[in-house]
């Protein structure tokens, strides 16, 4: 069992991680705590689970990919 975790852009630099694998978690918030060693969440944190936007209290399952990133600035 494992969950893939990814960080992007300024958040990747702040957290100091680009990706990580954790064993098990029940919500995206728990994924954050485990992957970052409980670093404080920024106010504008964005979460995606399996390439779809999600919430911090969204549930995660074995094999999921959970991504954390700041507000997007493309276009």
């Amino acid at each position, binding site marked *: 069992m494992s969950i893939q975790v990814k960080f992007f852009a300024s958040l990747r630099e702040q957290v100091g991680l680009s990706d990580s694998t954790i064993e098990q978690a029940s919500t995206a918030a728990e994924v954050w705590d485990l992957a970052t060693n409980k670093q404080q969440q920024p106010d504008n944190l964005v979460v995606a689970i399996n390439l779809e936007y999600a919430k911090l209290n969204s549930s995660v399952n074995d094999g999921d990919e959970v991504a954390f990133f700041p507000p997007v600035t*493309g276009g």
Partner: protein
Amino acid sequence: MVMKSPFFHPLLVADMAAIISEDYFEPWQLISEHQQKSELAKQFGATATFVGSMRDFNDDAHVSEMLLEHYPEMTQRYLEKLEHDAKQQWPIIDCLIAHRVGHIKPADAIVVIACWSAHRRAALDACNWLIEQLKFNAPFWKKESRPDGDVWVEHNTAG
């Protein structure tokens, strides 16, 4: 992405494309080439496009270069979803979205959106909707090289 299905009416076969490119492209040439590939040239009466390009200043600071990071699997999927959703809302015949990633120089095109339709309202409204959706939801991030160092852009302008 090429969508072809025997259930589509021939006139409505779409050849939508969602391109993410590390290489420079000339936006008008890209649009022209996409249009020439299409066999629908005599069917559409309206084309609306938007091109976002890099300015050499932002917040009054000179910007010499930009690095565009993205979440590759999610951006590709999201841009294709946007085109699909646009086609659900408007009678678009063809649609193109292209977005640069990586190192970008001032005056380079960053994003190109083009919508082809029989009449102008659908093309204009879909193009307008697509750029707004992309700006606020597609997982791209800009880092600007300024005289005092590299700075992540914190949020997009409202318009």
